[in-house]
């Protein structure tokens, strides 16, 4: 039992179990930390058994990363080569020493097995160990992907080297460097116990358990009853539903990151082929209301006209847009429309320059309640312009297979890739490089925005070797975003987590957002190292 080492232990460890809740349904005993979908990755305990090279604080992506298994990572100018210096004195939980070879092996493993290589597909050029440092060469510039390298989980060569097929390896033992080691696995719950020899000092969390629930409701109930103390699920009206249950100890905090949700507008068909209408719609969207009603304040309001989340993106907002905030301005919108030749008929319906009534359909999969609520609000806004907007939920599969890739929509909400820079956000919305005609499968740029200047700027940002070039590119991009409104960011979608400080404190807070607060990332090891029991 993990509880036996309580009391007089001088480590200050508690006997209390910290329960992490996840809404992922029953799990199978696959703990492979590299295979997407494995229990350890989806519940997140892979991140407390295995560790990453560096810790990145998504809230401040421009800050220097915190060394973790790597003392440092040096990049060359165009970000095609990284030199990794491993940390000294780290041991695997079976007692073997952790070396540069383990890092090199872990990278090589991904290079050799495309199935496991989700971060840099086809982009590793070579891996070598020189002077106890690991040199990783990439085929392309990785400036926007640096953090992905930092986040790579490192596995022991002496175990994994023996494995025939690392793709199907279930890693029952889980020998890692992290602060916890596997105690037992059941399909509903995974227990871990502290790693007494952890390089960062034995953790003060006496035991860690990952419970899985069948859906958000199950997890919400567990969080509100205190059965689970850390996790993440969308809790509508979390202040009343969750925090109010124990205001002193229940918290929900948002991390940072460039995650946002975007209303993709079909730039190629009516009515959104007219930038004036897109802009006008933008002006009717009450981001505050959307965030509060549909997002329950969980998804913070987006304020900057550039669509960048704040404060994460502050450093990237072009000077000309600094301080420019989104606001509802129906009159302004009408003005824009009037200028563009729109009129209104007797009943107040908006008529486009071609003389057709403006109407459009907002689509999202049925069941995605926050999106659908947001669409409802957006539709209400559009009605103020006299446009006829209806929300039509779609079947999820249809949405994925027919609606989104082929552009069979007029307006739909979709997320964008997070990233360590705004590049993904803008590229996903408006990169001409992803442009394909309507009816063909698009990977991003679902709205089919095609502006050479923007395309070039996005490419420049990614490949540039100096900040000035990048700033310039960013300005071009943001100008286009603001002027053309090819897609509309509706809210931020930061990493959010709920936790209870009944047993442990030290989680990231609003005041001290030292890491992404969610338990399902490499930052879990960092957070756990900061947790202290509330009582001994």
């Amino acid at each position, binding site marked *: 039992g993990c509880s036996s080492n309580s009391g007089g232990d001088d480590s200050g460890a508690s006997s209390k*179990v910290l*329960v992490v809740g996840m809404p992922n*349904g*029953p*799990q*199978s*005993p*696959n703990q492979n930390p590299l*295979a*997407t*979908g*494995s*229990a350890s990755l989806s519940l997140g305990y892979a991140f407390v058994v295995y560790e990453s090279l560096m810790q990145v604080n998504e809230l401040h992506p421009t800050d220097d990363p915190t060394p973790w298994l790597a003392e440092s990572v040096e990049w060359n100018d165009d970000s095609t080569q990284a030199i990794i210096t491993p940390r000294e004195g780290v041991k695997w939980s079976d007692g073997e020493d952790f070396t540069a070879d383990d890092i090199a092996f872990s990278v090589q493993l991904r290079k050799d097995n*495309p*199935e*496991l*290589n*989700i*971060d*840099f*597909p086809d982009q590793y050029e070579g891996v070598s160990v020189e002077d106890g440092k690991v040199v990783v060469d990439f085929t392309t510039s990785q400036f926007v992907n640096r953090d*992905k390298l930092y986040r790579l989980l490192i596995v022991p060569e002496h175990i994994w080297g023996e494995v025939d097929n690392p*793709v*199907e390896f*279930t890693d029952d033992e889980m020998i890692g460097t992290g602060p916890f080691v596997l105690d*037992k696995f*059941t*399909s*509903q*719950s995974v*227990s871990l116990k502290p790693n007494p020899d952890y390089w960062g000092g034995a953790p003060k969390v006496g035991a860690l*358990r990952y*419970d899985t*629930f*069948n*859906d958000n*409701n*199950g997890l919400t*109930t*567990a969080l*509100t*009853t205190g*059965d689970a103390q850390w996790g993440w699920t969308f809790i509508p009206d979390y202040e009343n539903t969750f925090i109010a249950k124990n205001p002193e100890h229940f918290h929900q905090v948002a991390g940072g990151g460039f*995650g946002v949700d975007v209303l993709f507008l079909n730039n190629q068909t009516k009515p959104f082929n007219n930038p004036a209408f897109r802009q006008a719609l933008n002006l009717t969207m009450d981001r505050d209301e959307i965030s509060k009603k549909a997002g329950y304040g969980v998804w913070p309001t987006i304020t900057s006209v550039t669509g960048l989340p704040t404060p994460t993106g502050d450093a990237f907002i072009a000077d000309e847009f600094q301080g420019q905030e989104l606001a509802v301005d129906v009159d302004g919108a009408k003005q824009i429309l009037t200028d563009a030749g729109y009129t209104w008929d007797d009943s107040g319906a908006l008529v486009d320059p071609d003389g057709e009534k403006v109407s459009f359909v907002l689509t999202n999969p049925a069941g995605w309640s926050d999106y659908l609520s947001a669409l409802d609000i957006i539709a209400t806004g559009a009605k103020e312009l006299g446009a006829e907007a209806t929300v039509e939920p779609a079947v*999820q*599969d*249809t949405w*994925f*297979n*027919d609606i989104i890739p082929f552009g069979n929509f007029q307006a739909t909400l979709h*997320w*964008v*890739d*997070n990233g360590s820079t705004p590049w993904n956000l803008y590229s996903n919305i408006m990169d001409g490089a992803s442009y394909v005609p309507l009816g063909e499968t698009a*990977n*991003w740029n679902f709205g089919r925005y095609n502006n050479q200047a923007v395309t070039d700027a996005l490419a420049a940002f990614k490949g540039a070797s100096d900040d000035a070039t990048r700033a310039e590119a960013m300005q071009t991009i943001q100008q286009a975003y603001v002027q053309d409104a090819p897609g509309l960011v509706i809210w931020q*979608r930061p990493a959010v987590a709920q936790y209870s400080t009944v047993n442990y404190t030290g989680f990231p807070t609003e005041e001290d957002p030292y890491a992404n607060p969610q338990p399902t990332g490499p930052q879990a090891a960092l957070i756990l190292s900061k947790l202290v029991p509330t009582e001994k």
Partner: protein
Amino acid sequence: MRFFVRRGIFYVITAWAAVTINFFIPRMMPGDPVKALIAKNQGKIPTDAIPALYAMFGLDENVPLWQQYLDYWANLFRGDLGISFSLFPMPVTEVIAQALPWTVGLVGIATIISFFVGTVIGTGIGWRRGTWADSLLPISTFFSAVPYFWLGLIAIFVFSVTLGWFPSSGSYDRSLIPSWDWEFISSVIFYGTLPALTIIISSISGWILGMRNMVVTVSSEDYVTVAQAKGLSERRVMFNYAARNAVLPQVSSFALSLGFIVGGTLIMEMVFTYQGIGFLLFNAVNAKDYPLMQGCFLVITIAVLAANILADFVYAFLDPRTRQEG
């Protein structure tokens, strides 16, 4: 013998058709496991990862459908149901083996209790037709007409969240290690109580109604009157004559409903975060996990078929009239 053979052939054909449909249905669904996975992790899995995932699930190979079908049968006979996508790389058999006992245990027990209690109540109501007992019917009807999830959620809200009498989710105390000790078993029982109760409440009405109607019908049979004429005690007439005969159709219905246990509890498992095959199947459908979906379908199909066969014979064995002449 001919009877057995005919029935046998009939069931084999049914099984073949069902399994074939089970094979094709998932494949006719749009979408694939990778997209489903991406959808589930909205934004968390970078787009770059897509090719890796296709490779991992082996979806990049192009095998013609009929070849897949043949392979499927070949594997089926080897007891190999393939490897689950959503729970990669677990064999489907293992995944199902893990989930099945929970469903069968909880729902099975609930169904059995529901059957017995419902049958006894139904006997009472049927026997005392025309008295106050009749007013129980609309009440039980009400509970059978209520959507199950609605009942379950209210039960959770009242008994778990508000009163705290029962845990709101899970199949046992998660801090326990599954084993055959009393602590664990009692935990399983404790956690299973609320789900079982809701199942019983929502399903009992069917048994009550069925039994009541049969008892009413049987009560007017001559042999019941004869039993009364013999001066047997009320209890004896009610149970040994009326109920004993009325229960025959109930029992074969019961055998059939045992078959549906395996597949019919998706909502319960969702609402109560209970591990089981219904939810497994639901997840498989959402994750486009064909092998798992097929596996679940197969298990459910076999269970229902087996129950059908069972029902065929249970009746024959319970009713001496259909038994072999002595």
